[in-house]
């Protein structure tokens, strides 16, 4: 037996692990105590992106550029006012009025749901790039439920969502089964299934089951009013889907940190070998992860059909949401609450971007450039840390991403 008396003075930390990485993020309690730590790098990444974005606004302002040669003072003044106007528009358009906030949250809704789908995958060490396809499948199922039956909204909407979850889960589950059974990498299979889903939607929309009567292009019948997500305030576009996304955040948090299923997901995500030794069935867990991830994507797809005009299925109705979600999950560090905030931020960029284009004449493309810059900064935490001389290494993120590719 060892002598317990000197327990306090014994070195507690191995010399191999750099003492810096003791940002002991309380995973059980969620972000918890080290909230500041968790927010610092993403916040600085956003800030850096805005600064670089400003430089790009200046550099692409063709009217002002020639002025730098003749009258630099005036050029500087004009440039600064241009940047000021652009960012003011971004701000006003995203949070400047009740309508702006409604637009931000409206745009955030599918992003949050899809971001959760990716985050669940990341936490379990899987890189689900197939959210786009799972959204399409889920959305199509919801669409069918939406126009083919008439029920009270209180039953119709949950039914459509449940069906969409099933659809997305099955579509995601295919990649899970392929990985578990054959070792096929989920990155490959999910990307390919995106194409299958995308063109299947185009095909289905032209079949008599879906196509709007009298049309030749791929557009579906309109869903019944009882399945349309009710809006919340006046003529604002914000609808009940935002609350579904909040519920999904809570559910994912509960699943990952409070249930045995999430415990298995995370254990296998960090160390599949260790999970297997501990008696977990890694194959079933991969299937489960992809099904949960696909199910969440299915709700996101539902939102794109039942939650906005024209309440019809159209070609590529999922748009880029499924891919933006990857960046979003990274920004939110794969934590459901992080995803919620990242989703709202991206929603704000979307909503504010339109205002930027309208009021300040900045092309909408630049908003996409801003988003891309944020993503680059997020994906390169070391860069951000180097710029601002923060010493703590960001182990969390690097682990999540690397295991995503590892399998």
């Amino acid at each position: 037996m060892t002598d317990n008396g000197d327990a306090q003075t014994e070195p507690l930390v191995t010399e191999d692990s750099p003492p810096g990485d003791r940002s002991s993020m309380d995973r059980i309690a969620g972000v918890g105590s080290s909230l500041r730590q968790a927010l610092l790098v993403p916040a600085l990444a956003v800030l850096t992106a805005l600064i670089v974005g400003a430089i790009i606004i200046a550099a692409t302002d063709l009217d002002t550029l020639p002025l730098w040669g003749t009258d630099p003072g005036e050029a500087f003044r004009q440039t600064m006012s241009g940047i000021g106007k652009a960012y003011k528009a971004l701000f006003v358009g995203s949070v400047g009025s009740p309508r702006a906030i409604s637009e931000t949250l409206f745009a955030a809704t599918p992003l949050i749901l899809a971001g959760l789908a990716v985050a669940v995958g990341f936490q379990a060490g899987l890189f689900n790039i197939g959210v786009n396809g799972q959204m399409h499948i889920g959305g199509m199922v919801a669409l069918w439920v939406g126009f083919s039956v008439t029920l009270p909204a209180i039953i119709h909407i949950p039914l459509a969502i449940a069906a969409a979850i099933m659809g997305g889960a099955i579509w995601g589950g295919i990649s899970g089964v392929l990985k578990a059974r054959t070792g096929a990498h989920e990155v490959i299979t999910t990307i390919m299934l995106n194409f299958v889903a995308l063109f299947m939607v185009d095909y289905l929309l032209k079949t008599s089951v879906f196509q709007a009567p009298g049309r030749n292009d791929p557009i579906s019948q309109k869903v019944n009013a009882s399945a349309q997500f009710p809006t919340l305030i006046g003529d604002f576009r914000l609808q009940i889907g935002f609350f579904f996304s909040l519920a999904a955040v809570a559910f994912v948090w509960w699943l990952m940190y409070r249930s045995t299923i999430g415990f298995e997901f995370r254990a296998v995500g960090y160390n599949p070998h260790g999970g297997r030794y501990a008696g977990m069935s890694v194959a079933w867990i991969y299937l489960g992860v992809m099904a949960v991830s696909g199910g969440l994507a299915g709700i996101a797809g539902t939102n794109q059909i039942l939650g906005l005009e024209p309440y019809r299925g159209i070609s590529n109705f999922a748009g880029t949401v499924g891919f933006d979600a990857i960046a979003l999950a990274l920004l939110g560090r794969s934590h459901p609450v992080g995803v919620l905030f990242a989703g709202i931020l991206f929603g704000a960029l979307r909503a504010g971007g339109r205002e930027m284009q309208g009021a300040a004449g900045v092309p909408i493309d630049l908003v996409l450039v801003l988003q891309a810059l944020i993503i680059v900064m997020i994906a390169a935490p070391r860069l951000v840390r180097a710029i601002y001389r923060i010493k703590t290494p960001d182990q969390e993120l690097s682990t999540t991403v690397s295991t995503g590719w590892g399998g």
Partner: protein
Amino acid sequence: MELALTGITKQFPGVLANDNVNLTVSEGEIVALLGENGAGKTTLMNILYGLYHPTSGTVEIDGKPVQFHSPGDAIKAGIGMVHQHFMLVPVFTVAENVILGDEPTKRAGIINRAKAKKTVTEISRRYKLDVDPDAIIEDLPVGIQQRVEIIKVLERQARFVVFDEPTSVLTPTEVEGFFEIVQSLKADGKGIIFISHKLGEALEIADRIVIMRRGKTVAEVLPRDVDEAGLAELMVGRPVDLVVDKAEAEPKDVVLSVEHLTVLDDRNRRAIDGVSFQVRSGEIVGIAGVQGNGQTELVEALTGLRTPLGGRVMLKGDDMTVASPRAMHQANVAHVPEDRQKSGLVLPFTVTENIVLNSYYERPLSRGVIMDWDEARDRATRLVEEYDVRTPGIEVPVSNLSGGNQQKVIVAREFDRDVALVIASQPTRGIDVGSIEYIHSRIVEERDLGAAVLIVSSELDEVMALSDRILVMYEGKIAGEFDATASTTEIGLAMLGSTEGQNEQAS
């Protein structure tokens, strides 16, 4: 020529890793740097190698202070480091690896392969390393790969060579060869720093032994003045019991019965070939053998991780040949895996999460799919106390714990129930003396409580100290059975597959 580290202090946030450490090594001298894991050896060497910057203190070569900002600086100053984990490109040849980062070129930047090969051959001959410059790294045994690392260091004109736990990956025979190499380096005038926590090796090879404890150099001794017990006491800071204290075994019923077991390895070769043995309640059976003779596959087959090709595994009369790892767990089999970081733990998980890693699905830790984290934390708190796991808290990632404490987490998790069979593979590999002592005593305790215990270890000393009965594995077969009083020589012979042992198996 002398390398001197004087008054080195390294302060990490919250940890004083090095506290006024002094270390010198002269040309033609072998200094062993001895200390438990966490004593600050690696930090000190990282400072010497330019990876860390000391908070205070100086590094001097031949009396001149030097400052290293990167390993490149250290290499230029004549310092070479052979890491515990090799830094080789597996698909490159020996010569390519040696010149990597310092490639000799012909005109137009074409690599001068002939010159590279010549360099390797010369160094290899001079120090009797016996390495083929054209061999591909991944085809070479670990012992030879280590020699390639040594050649790399020598090719860069190192005058001082640091070996970080060099013997931890070697078989007993390879260790002997390694010591010969170190001696020839010494004869050539190199200054050697030999980092280890193995007492016997330090006594055997070193001219001088420096002992670190809790970030300080606590003693400097000459091998002739101390013995292992003395060194252990200096390292741990209190008298250490090197002999496992246990009463005579009282074997009772057969718990584990392995019958004609045949197991394939990952390359579909017969790693275990028709092996039969039994382990009884109340006895410790040790499996000795040079690593790679089927021990890993045997343990995997016994714990449900690998499906045997043939034969049977019986546990208390139940056929468990094709049982899953979970079924084995539920049959009260405790498994301490060979590689604690790869298989035994989920490193980013907290101590609590690792404590419940294989029982999280059972009541009272969960009901249905709902985890009861209060219950889990209670269990973790209790086990951390009971098993003397030294950790700042139960919510700390287990990766922040020292090797010995990580192993205690596994042992606590596995032993905290009514254990019928313990299967422990390399239970004390790479951990400090205090933890070894503790884990050994726990294993004996399990035996005395009536568990059947199977120990698999490539460290013969450990097998001999713990076991009541010893089986020697050689090329997938049992090459001999010995009782606890057998001599090291007898067992050593069987480990090398001597004819005597094989006859015994054949009869």
